[in-house]
């Protein structure tokens, strides 16, 4: 699936459709979501105060553990674990996890690429750190998708329904109490998008 191979915005009035297409493009760009989205369809019905969106996601990266982004080295006599970072982009997540476990006082960063942890059981801790989950792109994607959905929706539509399962994302927002058929309609949009790929 190519990124944004299907990008449909539907509304009763053509010009309004264009405005929302632009808003969605801008928000996708600012959240850097465009590469993650394969197909997207949005239906606007301002007269019913309704916003429906269905998204099929592309393959996203797998979970990242410490060993994927860094080398872990043990110095048993000094009681220190040295982490030499290879991929800088995950440092914030890694540090948050390490701070939580060992406390800020026990962690030092002699330089940009090195994190040193003082601990009583360096060998066991090194083994743990190697397998520790640092970042989950799927989790981050989920957060971004929800953020994107809220940003794209008209602000007053505060009654929201969202579903995120596998590579499918469904979002319905309205100002009125949510109706079951709206969610079903959005589900039908999603099915349409899935079929769209078989051609």
């Amino acid at each position: 699936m190519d990124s944004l191979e299907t990008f449909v915005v539907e509304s009763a009035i053509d010009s309004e459709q264009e405005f929302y297409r632009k808003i969605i493009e801008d928000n996708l760009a600012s959240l850097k979501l465009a590469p993650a989205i394969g197909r997207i369809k949005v239906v606007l019905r301002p007269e019913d105060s309704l916003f429906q969106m269905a998204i099929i996601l592309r393959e996203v990266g797998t979970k990242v553990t410490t060993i994927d982004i860094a080398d872990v080295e043990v110095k048993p006599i000094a009681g220190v674990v040295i982490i030499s970072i290879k991929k800088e982009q995950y440092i914030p997540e890694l540090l948050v996890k390490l701070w939580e476990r060992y406390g800020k006082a026990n962690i030092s960063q002699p330089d940009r690429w090195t994190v040193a942890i003082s601990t009583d059981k360096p060998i066991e801790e090194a083994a743990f750190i190697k397998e520790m989950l640092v970042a989950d792109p799927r989790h981050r994607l989920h957060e971004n998708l929800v953020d994107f959905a809220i940003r794209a929706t008209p602000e007053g539509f505060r009654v929201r329904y969202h579903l995120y399962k596998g590579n499918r994302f469904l979002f319905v927002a309205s100002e009125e109490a949510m109706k079951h058929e709206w969610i079903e309609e959005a589900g039908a949009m999603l099915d349409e998008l899935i079929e769209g790929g078989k051609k």
Partner: protein
Amino acid sequence: MAVLLPYLYTGGVHKHGLLIELMEDLGGYIIQKVVTGTEVNLIMLVPEKDVYVVKKLSDELLGVLVEAPLTGVEIAVVSPTLASHHLPHSACDIAEYLRHPGANTNMIGLARGMGRRVSLSMDYERKLINEHDIAVFTFGSFSDCITKKKPKLFEGIEIPIVVTGGPADLKSEDVPGADLYIGNIGRVSHRLRRTEEINALDSLNEGVSKIADNIRKQQAKDPLAVLPARVMKEIENQIPKIRTVLSPAPLTLQLDGIRVKLPYDEFHEKIEKLEFDEGVTLSELADISRSKMKNYILIKCKSKSDVGFAI
């Protein structure tokens, strides 16, 4: 009474003091002085018959003198809320563009302005908006909302209302309660920079200037007892504390008054007792009240017919 015309001077800081001195000699007023690095912006009111003198000096100083029709106008830019849906684009862009011709703008985000059925404004918000000269409401992209649902936010607003929105084909008459509708500035998530967006901002400035001119014309029929610019100058001379205020416009001019950004309780008596050369005090010429904005002081000048004389 001399007719004063609003002008904006942009030039280097070097020797700009000459211009300030000239303005004192001519009896004009410096409304606002903004120094950014080596550049200075002076917003001023120049006596009509002396404009050529100022023009000559500004040419000598290699500066640019342009008309600033919105000088001395305080505009409320009202967005449904302060959420990221409306800010910084397009509401901030609109406010920023309105400042080009000299207006002072305040951004007001309503607490519950979003939505169709649920949108509403509070008494406090309406009073705050009414303290301004003109209100610009920034709405979204759906014509159904703009024409049918959002106009309820105009209830209780007594000042001229300008509405911006996405649909380009709506007319001012289609929006009940609005004095002017400007299309092509709807909800956007990018900085307004495309040709049609800039054109829309230009026509917004033009429309708002026209409304301000109309208010001035109405005012000319029954002039104010004292010019707000004159009050401004007297406050600067008699209440030195105003010089220590860090707001960008410590004294904000309005078409019929002035907002003084000093705490009300401490300073309102001093303002009321402000003396003019003619031997009158300000409390005789204007209503002085607590502003809804922070704890500032709001001065609204009375008209000549109310007071019986004008200075």
